[in-house]
């Protein structure tokens, strides 16, 4: 790494730390050059393939902030969420919780970490034990962690939790089994279980993907409320940029591509002033609920729609085979995150890309106003 890159690194720390709505510079969790490589069985030629699901990610999570993690299917979002919650141990890099390295935590502190960092899984079918009633699933962890004592207190707390997540009347849900609930209801049970342990961080992995629009907003509102009222930091994982904007309005957004963070900044900056050509393509692909705007955006600014093989990431910038702006430099030199405008972007030509985007947006708003 050359001196310039180190400067950017310092800048990155500065930016990701002093962000968003928290005034405190306190860092709850720090991801320090975190990578996750999966070995993928023996290939035909005898050597094991290495898939970089998460590559060299740096991120600070502050108390009570919301970070949206977005990107295409397979880009590493769930893997990063698993690392944050300690479900998977990164193959390299460090995870620090309240300043201490997670694998080196004392027994008490490790226990505290497991309670304070919760995950709402992408697959709500798989995340609930089909043999247990909702009451059983929700009361076991709080009894075990001695958050409440005694069956009576546990029941009262479970009822309260069900009410918090909008499952009313709560008594109707206590004796139900997961298969008797709709997708949206199960997703809320997972949310209730996560908040029951008084967490400081909730990683919510596609929590509304299975839910139709009318319910979607109410679950997003619930998460925003938990964040506001209980000061829980939320990592919202999704491929849906519109819901990310909805929930993380004042928070930050990290855009991932093939395991790497390509753009990081305040949500509104990232979405209104996108610099990275990949992010621009992603934004262009969002179906917007306005027929005139939707039809004005015709061709996607991508040279190819196929996602490259994560086991053989392209040389240089890993986006270059699909990038409409790629030059010779892009095929050999990997861009590092650097400050462009008010966000961090990993693209050699971020300034030019940004200018093109602004011109395109001006054209579209012209359509809106004729």
């Amino acid at each position: 790494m050359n001196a310039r890159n180190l400067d950017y690194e310092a800048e990155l720390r500065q930016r990701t730390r002093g962000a968003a709505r928290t005034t405190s510079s306190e860092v709850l969790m720090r991801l320090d050059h975190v990578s996750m490589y999966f070995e993928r069985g023996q290939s035909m030629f005898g050597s094991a393939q290495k898939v970089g699901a998460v590559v060299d990610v740096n991120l600070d999570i502050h108390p009570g902030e919301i970070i949206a993690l977005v990107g295409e299917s397979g880009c590493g979002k769930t893997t990063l969420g698993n690392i944050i919650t300690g479900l998977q141990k990164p193959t390299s890099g460090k995870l620090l919780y309240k300043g201490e390295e997670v694998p080196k935590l004392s027994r008490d502190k490790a226990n505290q970490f497991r309670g304070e960092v919760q995950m709402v899984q992408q697959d709500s079918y798989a995340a609930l034990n089909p043999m247990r009633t909702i009451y059983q699933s929700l009361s076991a962890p709080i009894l075990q962690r001695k958050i409440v004592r005694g069956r009576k207190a546990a029941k009262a707390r479970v009822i309260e939790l069900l009410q918090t997540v909008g499952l009313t009347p709560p008594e109707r849900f206590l004796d139900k089994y997961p298969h008797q609930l709709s997708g949206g209801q199960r997703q809320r049970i997972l949310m209730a279980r996560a908040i029951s342990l008084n967490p400081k961080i909730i990683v919510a992995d596609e929590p509304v993907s299975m839910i139709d629009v009318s319910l979607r907003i109410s679950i997003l509102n619930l998460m925003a409320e938990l964040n506001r009222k209980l000061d829980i930091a939320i990592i919202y994982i999704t491929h849906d940029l519109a819901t990310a904007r909805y929930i993380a309005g004042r928070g930050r957004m990290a855009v991932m591509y093939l395991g790497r963070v390509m753009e990081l900044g305040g949500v509104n900056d990232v979405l209104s002033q996108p610099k990275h050509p990949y992010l621009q393509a992603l934004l262009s692909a969002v179906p917007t609920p306005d027929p005139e705007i939707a039809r004005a955006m015709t061709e996607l600014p991508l040279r190819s729609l196929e996602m490259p093989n994560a086991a053989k990431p392209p040389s240089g910038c890993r986006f270059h085979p699909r990038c409409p702006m790629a030059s010779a430099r892009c095929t050999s030199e990997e861009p590092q995150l650097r400050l462009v405008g008010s966000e961090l972007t990993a693209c050699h030509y971020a300034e030019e890309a940004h200018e093109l985007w602004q011109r395109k947006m001006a054209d579209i708003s012209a359509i809106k106003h004729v």
Partner: protein
Amino acid sequence: MKEGNIIEPLVEVKGLTIEFPVRSGLLRAVNEADFVIPKGKITALVGESGSGKSTMASAIMRAITVPGLVSGGSITFDGRDVMSLGKKELQAYKWEQVSMVFQAAQNALNPVVRIKEQIMETFLAHARSKPYTEKQMTERARNLLDYVRLDPDRVLNSFPHELSGGMKQRVMIAFSLLLDPKLVILDEPTTALDVITQAYIFDILKKIHKEMNITMLLLTHDIGVVAKTADRVGVMYAGNVVEAGDVFDMFKRPKHPYTAKLMKAVPSLYEDVSERKGIPGSPPDLLDMPPGCPFHPRCDYAHDKCRKHNPIKVYTPAGHEVACHLYPNPESVAEVRTS
């Protein structure tokens, strides 16, 4: 309204009622629904989960299976009465006149049979009316796969598990076009896919629609997809089509209070977030429907009449239709009463 909006129907659904016997009674999934699919257009059918979209579409495909029962109404396809088709006619009707890509289509492929064999089976089942030679069949399959931007050599020789979700989705779309149908029904074709793959699939669909002049019916939760793709939109609520009209009208000037709420329930990237709200209340219990207009417990405009009588649908000459007491006659539809 723009000119050229006179609708020439390919499919006409009238008073359609479909029931399922369940433990606690008879569930009416589709309740006296009227609906028209115009020829050569892309029509979208939207509505909350459980509103009856898939059930109505399956009936058009004559794919309602026991114990489900079409207990009333009629379906006309290109002038023919669909409900009275005999066994042989039915075999030619399915896939040759109308084909359907079912919800969760990725799971519809047989996991232990190569794609090529699955395609051949479909051809052979229709050999009577479409007698292709093996060479012609392969040729056509290859062309269609190419059309949906798949590599025919690789895909034809693959088992389903060797293909990604997006690839399987495209195989199913190619499948639905094999026998040159007049109508293709697509049930939630992209829910599980990210926006770039989604955009890609809809690009393909629009191209197919244009070049082959195929009529399409798209069932979806995703209002954004509708805005981008459809010519005409129908809105289902509790088993009924409560409003239908031109896509631009439906977004700009929704008439039915439910449509207005549905359009506002989607978070948008370009608009003020605070304008987006969920729809309060929950969908009605189909086994215990409220009297009068089924939407009245959730409607801001509900009045006495709504609690007693189910509104009758009115039709404007320009092709808009709405069932709501706020619009007692076609003339009143010109005014927008929702906000």
